[in-house]
């Protein structure tokens, strides 16, 4: 027996459905309303443009006291995202605030795609390449986007 869903989660889910953010979607699972299938489009003008990235998002029991758990399912070449899809993003860690929401987090992630930060790396190898040969790194990111993140449906 699942616990009744807090009002906050119900409202956030409703708003995600009723006022969708362009380029972002988040759908809760039928059997677990705390688990979301997320889709984020690569921002225009970035090396992830044209890519559609799948992520999974989970709202822990003590949400919104703690941040949602979120990771990339689609492979991505990015200095702040590791091979397991984990994301290095301040608002998911120390800078989380209960006033933030699913939608603001997803927007931050989309922004992170637009502005990779190799100075605060999670994926050392990618970050190294990014710092030493940015042109090559961007090229690889484009190739990976075309290879893994192009909608096949």
């Amino acid at each position, binding site marked *: 027996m699942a616990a009744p869903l807090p009002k906050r989660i119900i409202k956030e889910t409703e708003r995600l459905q009723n006022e969708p953010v362009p380029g972002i979607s988040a759908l809760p699972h039928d059997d677990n309303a705390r688990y979301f299938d997320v889709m984020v489009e690569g921002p225009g003008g970035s090396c992830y443009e044209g890519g559609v990235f799948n992520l999974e998002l989970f709202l822990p029991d003590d949400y*919104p006291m703690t941040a949602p758990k979120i990771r990339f399912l689609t492979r991505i070449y990015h200095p702040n995202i590791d091979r397991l899809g984990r994301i290095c993003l301040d608002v998911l860690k120390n800078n989380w605030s*209960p006033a933030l929401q699913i939608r603001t987090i997803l927007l931050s992630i989309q922004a992170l795609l637009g502005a990779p930060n190799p100075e605060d790396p999670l994926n050392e190898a990618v970050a190294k390449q990014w710092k030493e040969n940015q042109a090559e790194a961007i090229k690889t990111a484009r190739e990976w986007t075309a290879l893994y993140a192009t909608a096949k449906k």
Partner: protein
Amino acid sequence: MKFGQEFQKALASTEFPEEWRGSAIDYKHLKKCIKKINTELESIGLDGETLHHLSEWMSPADSIQTVAGQDGKGYYSAATPSLAAVPEEFTPQLRILVDSKTGTPLDATLAPETRESLQKLAKHEMAAAGRREHVGSVKRPLDRLRRRTATEDTARKQSVSLEDARWVQVPLASAKDFFELLEPKLQELETLREAETAKLEEEIFDLGEAVENVVEPVREGFEARREVSYRDLYFWREMFRLYMEKPIFYSEHGPNGGALTFKEAHSRLEDYDMRIRSTGLLEKMRTPEARQAAKRFLDLNVDILKIMHFQEMNARAMTKILKKFDKQTRLEGRAFLRNLRTQYPALLTNGRTGTGGGSTSPGGFASSIARDLNAELATKVLGIVPQVEDWNCPVCYAMAWRPVNLGCCTSVFCINCIIKLQEEGVERCPVCDKETVLQANGRNIDFEAMDFMEKYFPLEAKKRQKFHDRAAKMAERGGGGGKHEEEKEKIPCRTM
């Protein structure tokens, strides 16, 4: 024609007050005027066919586009003298391109006899214009002169052959009649807009006071009526919540953001009326004052809609008649309209200048009425009845109960949410990020907010208080370190 009849019928059949009708655009009369203009044009040899030929090179009136090179007729696209540049003494004129030395009209399609009569007219005009420029130069505002010179300069740069060509304007008496008939109407419509808006604003203000009296929850000495007014308060809230869900006259967002057309507003008001009826809100209100105020609110919306309808119809009539004028006479009706728009800024309030009258934006003064009165309603009437959403806790999204203010910003949280934050070791205020959470204690309870919520949202407050009591009991029973776990375990039993 169709529109004219439609317009007359709408004016006569709907329940517009008699005094408005006098301000309506005289569509029939204006149409007759256009006929007269055509007769006058024909009398100087400009029949329909000639005008059609003329129009081929007269039509790019709005821009200085060059079609040089086509059959050596480059000069035909000369910068046309803009009537908009001399708006104060607007007289519709026929523009003819002539050789500046001989005064010969340069349009090859004109019949010889037409050319002759035009030549006479043009020569006369050039002489007269020369005199006027000379004599009148003192009176004429400088900038207008400069503008004219600038136009000529640009024209000269564009094509060498222009040196020998210049535009001459022939005044047409009957066309002047047309505009003299049209312009005062706009003045009248503007006056009507101002008067009606002021009247409705006053009604909105009065209604606001009436609503305030009715919904003020607990007044000194009226405790006996508490139950009654509480119930009415909820009906009012529902009534306004429905209204704000889909405002009648103005929508902040969506594809039709901005002022809505009469048609849209009409159907929205009908919808709203239906919903109020189907919920039986009016009948449920206990006090006659409340019912009366609610009826006034509905009537007010009908009145706003009425003046909007009237103004929009007239705007459409004006656009139509000017289009007709343009099409049939080739004189610059558009410039006239443009000029009016600068004279009456209220015509332009929603920023959409489209000349097409039938588009999605309401025409003319209607949009400014819709916008102004919508704002008045929102602040002076709807704002009086507080909505519970404004008192939600930023953490759990339920009503912030008991309300705690951390002292760092104006946000109000539930005491439970703050306790949870403290247990999690969160230091910073969820909203403003200042380190105030851990210092919070009983003194941070916002009694003023609590008072307000108890008065305006008594049902919600009761419900939240029950939840709060239960949580407190659980915490007591749990004691020590296991408290957090136990609370989590018990939550499934909650019946909310």
